[in-house]
């Protein structure tokens, strides 16, 4: 006495009863209740909870019917009408070159690995094309379109232009980001080199001073440290000085040095003459109108041309 009382016919003939699904369920439940009552009256049901156990759902797989249907349905068309090819995917050249992916893996492609899956489909199409082209040539069907053959395409020219534009845009973005990365790397590298050079120079200077002190105190009486250091010191200091002087004193510093520093004529520089009145060369529109505010100010306020601190300046000075 199995519990699956639901005797509903699972086919798609929509002409049987007018009941909707809800009513059908209701009626089956009532029917089931009635059956239970009957069974209880007959004494078939044991006391305790009777749990409805569902049968495992059987899925229809009518192999005979399928084969029969296929035999009836199949049209014996020549290959040139159908153009179908059944084949496994072509050999994966890239994976073979890398040495992985044995042929056994090809059978079951992992549907979640997007790239692998799409490559699988691509290779299947490739294998088909390779197989079918000779057959097509034999059947006299053309595959190459001649240059002067103009016909309507599946996608309009407008669409293709959009696609091309998008591709080009992607390319340019990639190139720009590459360039920016390289620049950043260069700058970092340049900074590193600069620090290294400064440190080396400081070390040499320290060594030189200690050697000199030793000589002064009478610990050693050899003066050969002078020659060795001089040769290297001269060569390296010159090269480094040049590099440093480029950035060294900026325009403002130069102006202040000129005005308040040593040497040269200081007085008689500021006269209120016709020429000086008409000279507007020192007018900076941006500064006057307050333009280039955060960009310029931030740039300046950041690390743009920051004057090194007192100790660093002392070291630079004593080195030179």
């Amino acid at each position, binding site marked *: 006495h199995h519990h699956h009382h639901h005797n509903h016919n*699972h*086919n*798609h*003939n*929509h002409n049987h009863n007018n009941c909707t699904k809800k009513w059908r369920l209701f009626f089956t439940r009532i029917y089931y209740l009635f059956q239970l009552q009957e069974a209880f009256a007959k004494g078939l049901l044991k006391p305790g909870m009777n749990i409805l156990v569902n049968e495992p759902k059987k*899925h*229809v*797989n*009518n*192999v005979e*019917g*399928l*084969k029969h*249907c*296929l035999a009836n*349905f*199949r*049209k014996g068309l020549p290959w040139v*009408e*159908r*153009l*179908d*090819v*059944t*084949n*496994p995917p072509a050999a994966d050249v890239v994976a073979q070159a890398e040495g992985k992916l044995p042929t056994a893996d090809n059978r*079951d*492609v992992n*549907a*979640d690995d997007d790239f692998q*899956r799409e490559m*699988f*489909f*691509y290779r*299947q*199409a*490739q*294998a*088909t*094309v390779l197989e*079918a*082209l000779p057959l097509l040539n034999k059947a006299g*069907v*053309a*595959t*190459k*379109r001649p*240059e*002067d*053959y*103009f*016909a*309507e*395409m*599946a*996608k309009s020219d407008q669409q293709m232009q*959009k*696609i091309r534009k*998008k*591709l080009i845009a992607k390319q340019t973005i990639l190139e720009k980001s590459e360039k920016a990365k390289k620049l950043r790397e260069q700058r970092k590298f340049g900074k590193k080199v600069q620090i290294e050079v400064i440190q080396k120079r400081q070390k040499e200077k320290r060594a030189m001073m200690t050697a000199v002190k030793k000589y002064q105190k009478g610990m050693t009486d050899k003066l050969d440290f002078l020659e060795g250091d001089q040769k290297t010191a001269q060569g390296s200091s010159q090269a480094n000085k040049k590099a440093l002087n480029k950035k060294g004193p900026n325009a403002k510093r130069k102006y202040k040095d000129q005005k308040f520093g040593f040497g040269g004529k200081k007085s008689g520089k500021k006269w209120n003459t016709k020429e000086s009145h008409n000279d507007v060369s020192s007018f900076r529109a941006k500064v006057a109108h307050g333009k280039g505010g955060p960009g310029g100010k931030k740039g300046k306020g950041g690390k743009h041309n920051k004057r090194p601190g007192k100790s660093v300046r002392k070291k630079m000075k004593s080195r030179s």
Partner: protein
Amino acid sequence: NMSTFKRKRGGKAPGDNKAKKARFIGNASSAPEDEQEKKNEISVPAPVSKGKWTNKERVLIFSSRGINFRTRHLMQDLRTMMPHSKADTKMDRKDKLFVINEVCEIKNCNKCLFFEAKKKQDLYMWISNSPHGPSAKFLVQNIHTLAELKMTGNCLKGSRPLLSFDPKFDKEPHYALLKELFIQTFSTPHYHPKSQPFVDHVFTFTIADNRIWFRNYQIIEEDASLVEIGPRFVLNLIKIFQGSFVGPTLYENPFFLSPNMHRRQIRLATAARLREKQIVKELQSIKKSEAKDDVVRDVTADVFRTPAEEKPVHIETEPPEPKAVKKNKHKAFKRQRMQMARK
């Protein structure tokens, strides 16, 4: 004159008599060039001859109401790709499915691709051989249309496709039946008047994860370099019927999970997770509020008890000798020197 005439279900529009005439799209433009380049006969193929078209396959592609833009574009793309297709107006939800057979008969089509949208979320596709069957119902997922900018390939409109099938299609009888259905539906007949004589793209049908994946590639070179044209979609088989939209079920897919069930499972999973968290919280609060029994014995009492014998306690009254620090050799030396000097 495009007057607003309400067409009957599946009937022809009044001014539609030109539909049967064959249109030579590509060859019409090349016909005047043909005469000029008579000497270069090899490059221009012969015009499509009416008498040679024998395979009279016609596919009716239409949908029910309530489809969204993506489905509409997919249908249009399929109609573009298949020159042997015909379109029809949307079918009302009230009509039963077997009405589609009548529509096909009126339109003189022997295959049908019917798209049905449910709940404005799920798309089902019926593929059927019209009068006698068989037919199959699929759930369509992962639709990408021709218009997507990532699909960079292009092909002639109406060119005949190559069809590529996974060997798994030959292994099971239901897949074999589906393969035959796909071949008859998707292959453009030879010498169809709207077709182009070149073969420049390939449809692939692959079985993965118990679903059928469809892709469309353009053949660029003879060495089989391909580019995807689109559209692309995934078909999840539900059932195969012996008749066309009616008839006994020949095959039911055991791996198919209806979208409602799928959504329900997700909801249940999240609900179960939340409930678990709540239960764990409750258990923890119960544990905290429980009366705790005092620990009498100290488990860590004998950790430092070593099995060696006791040494006598020795109290040092004098400071130990200072050790000579090797690092500051000079300092020790100097101090000693000073001490020695004083002494």
